């Protein structure tokens, strides 16, 4: 560290004390080369991120249709309609509800799974593999699996209920249980990723701390509460942020498990954006809703940044 600072200082001093400046041509050449290296990224960035964002904003102020018709400037009409659209708010509410329902088990179960594996139960590779494997499956595959499991007549879920003497449920079709069904499937599908992050974080904790603790007479629980959990703080913040963002993007598994049929209790905001654009052909309106959703994510991001800043200040 010191060396690097020193050498920087040397260069700066050197230039001040009359070291001959490099030729302008060489500097230009260097700049050209750096731009050439940057160019592929810049092209991709402008084409696939910057322009779509700008184009989306422009679209949201028009009545552009997917069919090529329309396109007239309508001012804030789409935004006004979106803010007064009960279905948009319902979809937004469903998305937030799903995020709340799924994030807690996805963090807690991942933590428990990682703790079990980290404590050295036999056959670690098998646990690691089986916990992470579902995450590798495509959403279409997991949707199909869980549609079978939740089938009201022949599905395993109702077999289990019947085994315990409970009434069978129309899991995916009943508005009272369909969101829960999607949460269960999603937890099974994606918990492996959080598990892996937690496991990596746990394995970074120096074993000496545990040794010292056990010499001091701390049992497994005390070690977990006093050593493991506190040191997982940064990992937990990261997992929470990633998880909230992932859950807010709910679409594929819900759409596929319900056969693309809109349900008032499971329609996520992303599905509503899709329906407005690709089923009802209202591109302008669809763009407007996506920017309302974007605004919600920005607000969440700001809140999260404020919270983490406060946490850092506390430490």
């Amino acid at each position, binding site marked *: 560290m010191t060396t690097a600072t020193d050498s920087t200082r040397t260069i700066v001093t050197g230039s001040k004390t009359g070291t001959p400046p490099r030729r302008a041509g060489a500097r230009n050449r260097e700049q050209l080369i750096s731009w050439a290296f940057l160019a592929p990224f810049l092209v991709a960035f402008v084409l696939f991120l910057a322009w779509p964002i700008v184009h989306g904003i422009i679209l949201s102020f028009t*009545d552009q*249709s*997917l*069919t*090529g*018709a*329309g396109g*007239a400037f309508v001012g804030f009409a789409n935004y006004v309609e979106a803010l007064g659209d009960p279905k948009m708010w319902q979809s937004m509410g469903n998305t937030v509800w799903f995020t709340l329902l799924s994030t807690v088990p996805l963090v807690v179960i991942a933590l428990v799974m990682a703790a079990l594996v980290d404590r050295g139960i036999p056959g670690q590779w098998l646990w690691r593999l089986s916990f992470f494997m579902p995450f590798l499956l495509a959403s279409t595959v997991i949707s199909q699996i869980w549609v079978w499991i939740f*089938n*009201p*007549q*022949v599905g395993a879920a109702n077999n289990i209920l019947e085994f315990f003497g409970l009434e*069978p449920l*129309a899991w*995916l*079709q*009943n*508005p009272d249980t369909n969101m829960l069904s999607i949460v269960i499937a999603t937890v099974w599908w994606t918990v492996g990723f959080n598990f892996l992050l937690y496991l990596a974080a746990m394995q970074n904790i120096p074993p000496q701390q545990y040794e010292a603790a056990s010499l001091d007479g701390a049992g497994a629980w005390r070690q977990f509460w006093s050593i493991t959990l506190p040191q997982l703080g940064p990992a937990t913040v990261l997992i929470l942020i990633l998880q909230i963002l992932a859950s807010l993007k709910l679409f594929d598994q819900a759409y596929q498990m*319900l*056969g*693309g*049929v*809109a*349900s*008032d209790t499971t329609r996520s905001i992303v599905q509503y954006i899709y*329906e407005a654009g*690709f*089923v*009802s*052909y*209202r591109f302008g309106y669809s763009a407007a809703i996506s920017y309302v959703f974007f605004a919600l994510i920005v607000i969440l991001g700001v809140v999260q940044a404020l919270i983490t800043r406060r946490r850092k200040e506390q430490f």
Partner: protein
Amino acid sequence: MTPPLDLSRRQFLTAASVAAGTALLAGCAPGAVPGSGTQTLQFWHLLSGGDGVTMSQLLDDVNGAQSAFRIRPTVLAWGTPYYTKLAMAGAGGRAPDVAIMHATRTVGWAPGGLLDRWDVDKLASLGIDSSTFPKPIWEKGFVGEGMYSIALDAHPFVMMFNTDICDAAGVLDSDGKLQETSSPEEFLDQLREVGGQAEGHALSYGYLGDGAQMWRLFYTFYSQHGGAIELPPGGPAVIDKDVAVESLSLMRTLLDGEIALAQADYGSAVAEFATGKSGMLFTGVWELRTMQAASLPFDATMIPTLFGTPAVYADSHSFVLPHQTNADPVRRDLTYQFVADMLKGSFGWAEAGHIPAFLPVTESPDYDDLIPQAHYAEAAQHVVYDPTAWFTGSGSNFQSEFGAAVQGVLLSGDDPAAAIDRFEARVNTLLRQPNPADPEGTFGS
């Protein structure tokens, strides 16, 4: 002796790229098959499974019977994906020469210029006119004054019944047909008789999570009262609430757990009937092949007229001309020829269960021998399509909106009147929106 090729690496790569590019462009180019006068016509459709196999056979027949054109079909997944892609192709003006659409969807598309008109005179010169179609099916081809679709078939909602179970229940006539019932009470009595003989339920009807299934039965019962739901642009919807409540209440009565399973989805209802466990099944004619493959003793008939007027929900697979900016007149003529050939050869389509729209086919003696298709052929005269609006039709959101509004009635016994109010409110919201394919409302002006 051929001299050895003396090419540098760069020359070789250049030559190879040019050759590949040329081949690629030639492959993309529509039009004539090289070395012959045969034109290749692009045809998009959404028929898969058994229907897809039958369609392939029909296309092979049409291709083999002449050398002026060859049809190159593209099959896309049915529903939103199909309609999105077809709409975008039409919007770009470089659409396929001809495509299949549900007749009910053309109303939303024609005003946006996504479809080109059929020339009625040219069709007539090929033997296709109003006299060769059942009236409601021919009329469904029109949007305003123009003809935008021409039906290959009608695929109504029908009732299949297990002949062994129904025979044992004593509800068959001497000629093996189901005894007629003309009121909900009579029909319920008949079902209870059948239920006594069935291992499972009297009736299989799957509806869970499937707005289309709920809508098909509801609108059949609704239309049997002699009126239709009307959806005038701008709204409000004209729905006879008493009729709607009565229709929905009957559906709830059927799903009492005794007559039909209270919680069944489409697949399990089809499976229950196909395995011989139930006496009757409400389904579309497209399931005919499933039951034939199950070697089931069964027959099919129109859903009984319980409220006075024979009516049955249906849609039609129809030929449309997706908009082409520079339509080639030669290829257009051949497209007309293709459609005429398909209609005239649609007997094969009847084997898949659909009722061909072309009357000379359904009125032929051969068709009478096609059992059970001939037993429900009269449904074509009583078909009722979705109410006309830009947002209705098969594969649209309208039917799932209906399902979302009324499923609670069928599943949990919610109040039917409140469900109809919810549905009406949703429809009125949609009616207030302009057709997104024609937001400025310039169609017809």
